[in-house]
């Protein structure tokens, strides 16, 4: 009996070791520990043994049973791991294939630059106001100290609708509209479309402007310089030099053109800046007392500054775009670069 048990044990261990898969391991288990296995019949036949032999044989059978069960369990773990490995290798994918889902669209570069400008002025405390594209001559010209038949009106080539209605040539009418309704202190920016009868590589009959103005007691030309310098450094980079040079606008006095160090040559002089080292970015000035009088503000009590800039021009300089018309052509190969 003892030898028989030993023989079964050896045979079983060998079968377990040789099992290459879960089914063949199962087969081994059924063969050696199953209901109809030789081992089980030995176990059942314990009762036939003599009382003296029974304990020893019982202990031996139990020990072998435990041994085989442990071996089966261990082997099963190994085989399971092995199978998982196999499954994992089989499930390998090409992780470089493209992702899925809806491709995100793009925000137009004009909108991006406008949003950036709005955000900077927002941080400086300016709020947004808007006005109509189709505007009264009064708000576009007269209210801004640009009388009829004055040569300064020729600074803007205007689209007319009829009579005293026109397409606004700048966003400055919003200044007058807001000041007519509200009292200082005011810090306002007015973004929007403007229209001029111009067409070449840098001029489009439709373009975007951002107007801004700030009115309170004791606002100085120094404040104008400080505010616009801060804005331009945030847009073009902290290291950029900014300069203010005298200019003329009917609605500001003194008026200043604001230049930024050339973005291409860093001020050394190149084709972009026409060898001057500077790029003209925006027009500005202290609001003319005549504009204040038109909205019944006392110019002795209040002062303020105003400024206006072309958004396409800033976008062109920021991104190195050489034709304004690319913005309005909306070629996807252009739009998707931003």
């Amino acid at each position: 009996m003892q030898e028989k048990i030993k023989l079964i044990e050896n045979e079983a261990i060998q079968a377990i070791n040789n099992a290459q898969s879960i089914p063949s391991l199962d087969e081994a288990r059924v063969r050696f520990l199953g209901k109809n296995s030789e081992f089980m019949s030995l176990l059942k036949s314990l009762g036939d043994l003599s009382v003296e032999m029974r304990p020893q044989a019982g202990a031996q059978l139990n020990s072998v049973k435990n041994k085989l069960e442990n071996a089966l369990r261990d082997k099963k773990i190994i085989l399971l791991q092995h199978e998982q490995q196999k499954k994992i290798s089989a499930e390998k994918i090409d992780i470089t294939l493209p992702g899925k889902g809806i491709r995100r669209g793009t925000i137009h570069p004009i909108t991006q630059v406008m949003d950036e400008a709005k955000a900077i002025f927002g941080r400086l405390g300016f709020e947004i106001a808007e006005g109509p594209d189709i505007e009264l001559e009064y708000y576009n010209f007269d209210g801004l100290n640009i009388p009829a038949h004055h040569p300064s009106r020729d600074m803007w080539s205007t689209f007319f609708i009829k009579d005293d209605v026109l397409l606004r040539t700048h966003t400055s009418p919003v200044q007058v509209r807001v000041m007519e309704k509200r009292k200082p202190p005011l810090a306002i920016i007015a973004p929007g479309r403007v229209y001029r009868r111009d067409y070449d590589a840098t001029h489009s009959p439709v373009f975007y402007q951002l107007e801004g103005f700030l009115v309170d007691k004791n606002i100085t030309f120094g404040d104008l310089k400080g505010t616009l310098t801060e804005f331009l450094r945030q847009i073009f980079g902290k290291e950029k030099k900014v300069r203010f040079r005298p200019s003329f606008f009917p609605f500001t006095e003194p008026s200043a053109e604001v230049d930024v160090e050339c973005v291409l040559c860093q001020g050394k002089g190149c084709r972009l800046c026409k060898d001057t080292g500077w790029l003209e970015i925006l027009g500005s000035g202290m609001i003319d007392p005549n504009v204040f009088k038109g909205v019944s503000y006392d110019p002795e009590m209040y002062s303020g500054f105003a400024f206006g800039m072309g958004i396409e021009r800033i976008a062109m300089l920021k991104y190195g775009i050489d034709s304004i018309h690319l913005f309005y052509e909306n070629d996807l190969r252009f739009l998707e670069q931003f």
Partner: protein
Amino acid sequence: MRVPIEWLKELVSFRANADQLAEMLTMAGLETVVLPDEIIDVAVLPNRADCWSILGIAREVSALTKFKLKPIKYRGKESNRNIHKLLKVTVRDAKLCPRYMARMVEDVKIGDSPAWLKKRLELAGVRSINNVVDVTNYLLLEVGQPMHAFDASLIAGGEIIVRRANPGEKIDTLDGVSHELTADTLVIADNEKAIAVAGVMGAGNTEISQATSTIVLESAYFNPVSIHKTSKAIKTRSESSIRFEHGVDFAMVETALNRAAAMIAELGKGRVLGGQIDIKGKVEKPTIIELRTEKINQLLGAAIPDGDIKAILTRLGFKVVGKKVTVPSYREGDIYREIDLIEEIARIYGFNRIPATMPSAAFPGKELHSFDNFRSQVLEIMVGCGLNECQTHSMIGPNDLDKIGQPLEKAIQIDNPMSIEESLMRTNLLPSLMNVLVHNLNRQMENVLLFEIGKVYLPSNQKLPEEKWTLCAVVCGSPLMSAMDKGKVDYFYLKGAMENLINLLKIRDLHFVESNNLLVQPGRGAEIEGIGIVGELHPAIRQKYDIECPVYFMEINLDVLFMKAAGDKRYVQLPRFPFVARDISMFVPKDVQSQMIGALIRRVGGELVENAFPFDKYQDSLAYRVIYRHPEQTLTDAEVNALHAEIIKALEAKLSVRVR
């Protein structure tokens, strides 16, 4: 304006080289670039008519460098004969011609100008004609006073009359153009005919020629507004008209005339006649402005000493006595207020010397512009749905409206468009986006998904038209990242974008109804009343654009959507009990829409139906899932079964569906 440096140096000595000169003038408000041949090119601003001459630039250089200005000289030799015996001048409209002066030069030999004069004119960009015309051009450049020379023998009756043109009066100007004039135009005439359009251009009938011997030289001050109007009306701009319309120097009229007469006599070997004609109305007293030094520094945020202020103004030609500042004749018109003086001081002192500061007051960004914020949200949603934002012109053409079958009459017309293609204000964003779609399809792009947020312009009964913010989208191709994933845009893709918009803005109770709009293919478009439309573009329309693939579009009135979106967000307590889901599979008649099924399920199921949505469709069979939940307890199978059976009964009875 081209300024030869050597000529400039005749009027003011200075030590700067061309580059330094250009920098100095630029930073004083006269944008200047250096050209070859020792020439600078100065861009004169519209308010600085006084700088439209070498003298004007010399005055600026003098103010900036502190070098003294040299006087304009001429010889005063005259013949025995007197102008008054030969010429009579009558000014009939003193308002349009406040000053008219004339001198005569006799025995002039017309010929070429000397080389030095030709050279100077050439450097300044003016063509040499003859020794008389050249002198008038020379003085126009040097002192900014336009003058005109007539052949005295061709002036009928020896009389010059400054008058308004007779309506319909004709004149042939020196540039060979015939003009028909109106009574708004001031002319210089003799007894018979007009001999010049005042301040703009002379006529051929009294032109200086080789046969000319006696010359009448005119120097005047014409009303700027009148010259501006005339120049526009007859579409002629000349070096003269540009200067007159900005206002010339009243005092320079005489100096320029005398210098010109003396120069012509010298170059043409003739003699200046004695006397001069000078007809002027009441001469205005010079403008005197009270200037407060504290106001200057308060406005500029600077600390410019009184002494510097006085010195700057004096160098610019102002007389300063105490607080009173007298304006020189050549700055009349431009400078009449304290603020104008402050600008002069600031620009000569130097903008860059004024310290930059931040406004001392606090400007809290008071109000959020909620519509601007809303627009950004809409933009983000659309971009998230895979569409590319476009910006197109606000103008369209009749052809654009014609293609989409929209009426032209509704569109606001531009009176002076640049082209017929951009002669109307758009009433719809669709045509512009269709053109962009075509542009991209023609460049081998297959997946074109576009949208724009912009205004449309509609007539109103107010003075100004109505401007409505609109969202429009036009798509064809695939919105997917990878070409490996098959799937093209269809009606449901754009409807999805519209639903995303409505959901994210937390707008409720909006219903899609089938659209009868002529833009959509019948049966493939939906509308939300008053808000927008989504659907497949009618094939007949896309064929007009030669587009073969189906095009889907969407248009939304953002002003209305914004009003609906304005509500606050409120938290609703999370459910504490589980839901029970039951599906209904049914055959649905053709005219029954999914929305009707969903609505009926909700109505019959009442509060216990939390949600009901379609989850499968194959041919005429549709599967709906109903989610049941009770807020206070776990629903039992029996409760759900009873309600579910009731819903099925209602569906069969009311909508004739057949539940499988």
